[in-house]
């Protein structure tokens, strides 16, 4: 696939929206972005305002999603938590994508021993249960949001690296690369101006799934007490706070759980939809 022309893009969009599941996913994610960016559209309550008279109050007109263990409004915390969760997801995946691109491009392009060494490194990293590594590093360095983003990013780039490498390997044999070389383009230029844009597509799909995965990792870290620290709200820590009261204060578990579920599902469907729509070979039956 060369650089997209507008008709190819339109084709892509058409295929994408025909897939109703994927379109649904896309809408969910779009809504999420809007809410995270403009929380006041949904509610203007202070997410950190403690009200001990209303601890664990069930959903009501005043608190549509109920209150938590300190009487704080769950809806407001969910909305502000959306931003945090998305932030964590994006930055972590951004880091992972950047590293993966770098490693994959270099390995694929230069080949031979560079490729060998880099891919061995990827293999080594893949051997570790990444959650073990994340757990250990966060526990040692402290659960600040930055650490969480960095560590998740640093332990999940391997999939992107492999993808990019595979794409690079096939792309570098192509005509337009040969043409660029003939014109005297240096390696760096070839890599970044020619190969990179074309290798991006599968990586983007991978990245959407990565954002979803990062949200789940954050909720696992919250369960262990080393996720985003309260009182800053994140879906993971609201869910964890709710787990000890799961039968009794169901709203504290159900809503964040549903939110995570729907969001991750949305990302997955979106990613799959992009993949299906971008690959013309799988068109119809």
């Amino acid at each position, binding site marked *: 696939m060369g650089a997209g022309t507008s008709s190819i893009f339109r084709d892509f969009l058409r295929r994408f929206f025909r897939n109703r599941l994927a379109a649904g996913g896309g809408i969910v994610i779009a809504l999420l972005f809007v809410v995270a960016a403009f929380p006041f559209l949904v509610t203007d309550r202070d997410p950190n305002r403690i009200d001990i008279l209303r601890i664990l109050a069930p959903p009501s007109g005043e608190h549509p999603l109920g209150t938590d263990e300190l009487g704080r409004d769950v809806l407001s915390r969910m909305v502000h938590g959306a931003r945090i969760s998305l932030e964590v997801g994006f930055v972590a995946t951004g880091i992972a994508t950047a590293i993966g691109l770098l490693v994959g491009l270099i390995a694929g392009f230069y080949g031979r021993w560079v490729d060998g060494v880099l891919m061995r490194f990827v293999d080594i990293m893949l*051997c570790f249960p990444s959650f073990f590594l994340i757990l250990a590093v966060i526990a040692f360095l402290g659960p600040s949001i930055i650490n969480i983003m960095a560590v998740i990013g640093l332990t999940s780039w391997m999939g992107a690296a492999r993808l990019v490498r595979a794409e690079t390997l096939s792309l570098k044999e192509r005509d337009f690369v040969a043409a660029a070389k003939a014109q005297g383009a240096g390696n760096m230029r070839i890599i970044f101006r020619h190969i990179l844009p074309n290798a991006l597509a599968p990586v983007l799909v991978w990245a959407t799934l990565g954002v979803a995965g990062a949200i789940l990792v954050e909720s696992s870290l919250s369960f262990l007490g080393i996720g985003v620290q309260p009182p800053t709200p994140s879906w993971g820590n609201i869910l964890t706070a709710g787990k000890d009261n799961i039968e009794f204060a169901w709203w504290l578990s159900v809503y964040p759980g549903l939110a995570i579920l729907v969001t991750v599902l949305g990302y997955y469907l979106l990613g799959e939809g992009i993949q299906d729509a971008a690959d013309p070979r799988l068109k119809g039956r």
Partner: protein
Amino acid sequence: MLRYIARRLALTVPLLIGISLISFLVIHAAPGGPVEMATDLNPKVTAEARERLRAYYGLDQPIHVQYVRWLGRMATLDFGQSFSRDGKQVSEKIGERIPVTLAINVLSMLLIFLVAIPLGIYSAVRKDSWFDRISTVVVFTGFAVPTFWLALLLMILFGVKLGWLPISGLVSLEYDSLGLAGKIWDRTSHLLLPVFVSAFGGLAGFSRYMRSNMLEVIRQDYIATARAKGLPERKVVFRHAMRNALLPFITILGLSVPGLLGGSVIFESIFAIPGLGQLFYQSVMSRDYPLIMGALVIGAFLTLIGNLLADVGYALADPRIRTE
């Protein structure tokens, strides 16, 4: 084929060294040490007692000396003594926990295998049908749901409300006095929920992978040929398509080991299962360096073995490699 296996084995050595280095680096990112865990904030401790404990644990050596000593011992699978109070050998402590974690992971891989394959095949064959769509959503629900949340919900449903299954642990207290059938049922009932929860998350990835593999394969020429030859659809699917789609599947089953091990931290905690995941979590919290390193290395090692087995299985199954 033996050459293939030998080559794969040789590749594992540099991998192992890299693993040991990375794990060593990771744990030295850590501030704090095990001595303090033992004696902190207890009004009866003096500085002198603490120093004694520090020397006792050997933390006063420089870093590279510690690493070299450790590397040497790792070669003999001796990870040293755990820093914790019982002072057991790390390999012993991990060895105690591995059977449980392995058992659950193997069972859950089995479950994934049994469910993902038919699911993936059927979804591929009936692409875009209602079945395909619904199974997509159901399967991704498993992926998208935080493990502990799902675990608790199932525990409440099956353990408290319905009372069908035990809530946590490996065996009941009366285990020793049960007959053989009772013992089997006891263990099984305790494992049902953890295995299910562990597998449910993995279903998504695998069934989708199977599905896309099948889709790839179905479009191949030899399938069209088989159909043109007039073979019944069933035979086409099973005999030809499936076997070829299955091959890469074996490989990624091996790749799933680290994911399953990592996930075990959470569900072992929720289900009170004394496995490797729990052990690792506790060792991290108490800065039990030898144990942390041992667990990381052994986890990586298990993955290597998993991959190796998968590759061997692949080699056996793929006639092209078998006859090399």
